[in-house]
């Protein structure tokens, strides 16, 4: 295990101890798994954001993609398997197109990633607002609801399993496959990567497609949780995936970090939020604590010497 993960793990343990002290009831299996289930939605998006950050980029359009997926699936899904499957595939395809445009523009025209994805976010937002006229409609079928908020054996949330499965899949991909490793190389040293035969442009396009697709998957899970189409499905996911990745050790320098850290970062974000609710903290307090955690852990990461550069 990477030394890089020490800091986040320490943070996670600290938060869990704090929760245990304040409200031991929350650590009982049912409520604990409930809180962790809520982390799954953030977790899936954060995977995509981490992959993008590994190439030195950032994706600020993910929260709008989540909202789009939510509105799209609520609008079109009917209660039969064919409809559910086809709408799911279409939603993922739609997100893939968004990611493709992002990646292509960033790779080919040198637009800074932050601007391209912000602009794309606006465009997506404008599109679904125009299409729904501000009044989204529709419901999510039971099957999807079960995946989004249901539990296996009445205990283990399905969404949690989906998140963990995707995470491990991506970890394997990044560490064991050539394509995965090229993501790291493109981020840490683009010139060397190109010289060693990696097609940087395709790598970048791939990561943005991946992040949008993961956002769509998270959007489907969230839709299952919410049960209906709404304009606010993505609101909490604008900055929190970035925060989760940063806490987990991924930086914008590119080439440093990984999904393992992001998993821990996601959990920390979620449990801190939970902790704040338990102590009835004002919203202001939650923000300050979040900011301090992000800044503090980022500082700790950047003052460590275990970088690849």
């Amino acid at each position, binding site marked *: 295990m990477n030394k890089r993960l020490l800091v986040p793990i320490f943070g996670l343990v600290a938060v869990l101890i704090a929760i245990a002290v304040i*409200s031991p*009831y*929350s650590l009982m299996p049912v*409520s604990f798994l*409930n*809180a962790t289930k*809520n982390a799954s939605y953030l977790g899936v998006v954060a995977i995509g954001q981490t992959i993008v950050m590994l190439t030195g980029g950032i994706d600020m359009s993910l929260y709008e993609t989540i909202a789009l997926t939510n509105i799209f699936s609520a*609008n079109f899904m009917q209660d039969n398997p064919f409809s559910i499957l086809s709408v799911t595939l279409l939603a993922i395809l739609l997100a893939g197109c968004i990611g493709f445009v992002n990646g292509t523009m960033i790779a080919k025209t040198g637009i800074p990633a932050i601007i391209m994805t912000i602009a794309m976010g606006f465009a997506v937002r404008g599109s679904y*607002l125009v299409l*729904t*006229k*501000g*009044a*989204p*409609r*529709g*419901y999510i079928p039971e099957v999807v609801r079960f995946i989004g*908020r249901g539990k296996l054996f009445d205990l283990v949330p399905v969404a949690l399993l989906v998140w963990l499965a995707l995470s491990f899949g991506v970890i394997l991909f990044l560490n064991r496959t050539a394509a995965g490793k090229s993501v790291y190389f493109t981020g840490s040293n683009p010139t060397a990567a190109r010289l060693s035969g990696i097609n940087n442009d395709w790598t970048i396009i791939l990561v943005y497609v991946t992040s949008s697709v993961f956002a769509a998957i998270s959007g489907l899970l*969230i839709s299952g*949780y*919410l*049960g*209906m189409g*709404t*304009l*606010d*499905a993505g*609101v*909490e996911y604008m900055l929190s995936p970035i925060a989760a990745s940063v806490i987990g050790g991924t930086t914008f320098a590119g080439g440093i970090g990984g999904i393992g850290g992001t998993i821990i970062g996601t959990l920390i974000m979620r449990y801190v*939020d*939970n902790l704040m*609710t*338990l102590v*009835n903290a004002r*919203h202001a307090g939650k923000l300050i604590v979040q900011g301090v955690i992000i800044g503090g852990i980022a500082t700790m990461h950047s003052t460590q010497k275990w970088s690849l550069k």
Partner: protein
Amino acid sequence: MICVDILPLPDTITLRVMHGNCKNILLIFLRGKNMKKLAIVICAALLVFCVFGVAFAVSKEQQVVDTSRFKKDPPWVIGYDIYWLGNTWSAQFAEEFKQAVSMYDQLVKDVVITSSEGSTEKQIKNIEAMISKKVDIIIVTPNSTKGLAPVIKKALQANIPVVLNAAGVEGDEYTTFINVTDRALGKAMAEWLVNELDGNGRIFAITGLPGLGVAEARWDGAMEIFNQHRKIKVVMKDAGDWADPKTKRVVSDMLAAYPRPDGIWADTPGLGMIEAFEEAGSSFIPFATCSDNNGFLKYWAQHKSRVNAIGVTKPVWLSSIALDYAFRILQGNPVFKDNFIPPCVVTEENVDDFVRFDLPNGYWTLCHLSDERAKALFGE
């Protein structure tokens, strides 16, 4: 508040007069066809009495605004600012106005519609644009109780009357103000809850979107009541932002920490809160809401035995009333400075009258929109 209902039952006309939180104080059963005419006459008399009663009660302290300097000949140019479109209530609110104004082609030459997207700063820009465009009257839902004062003053100086629609400002620089008193809403919800709990219990509180004065006013009204009952304790409080997703998450977290509250005061559409309870497996408790949201009412109508709730609401048709007042002002007729419409109450008894199973969850049921417009808005 007095509500008069006519319930059609076979062969019988039942008159029901309610007061306050739907306590029936008078039930009249009339049998037979002759009685129908008598019932109608009694109804009309009661209505007239109510109107005079309300007007009488209201006019004692009311300030009357002299609008003769705004008198203009029709057709008029109306300036309407859409304060926000971030949820279905605000979208329906704007649509109500559009429907109302579309029925008066001969009086209205043009409608200048601007959008503020919840931002005070944008709203100031929009009103400035309306002043530049020299509209005949401005109807606005202020996003801030203080921020608009200078620009409204500029409008009044340019001889453009300003109608405040469903949200107010501090001070009295405006022509007229129409609202359902938010403070009274919060108070009525709290009063019902205290009643249901017999003055004793631990409750959750969910407030609305922090920012517009509306959510704070409702909570202030509630606190007024809760402070009078020492045995009612608010154990957890958070903002639901008038959004079901956030409310659901917030209530889930609250239930995780405190699984058995006695009641909940919630300024929220409602369905998110109910789902949080269902998923946590907590038993249902009295829900005091200010919602006439269709999704909430659907669940309520289908689970009447489980749900004990009330909805003290601010209806979306307020914006069409604003138009009526606008016309009055432009005709030079006097209006009251502050006009408070009493809230409408949704209870177990009348939830079936309001719920619409053919329309989506986002629909707000106390609404005058025609079916075509409602369906067009919600994309059916």
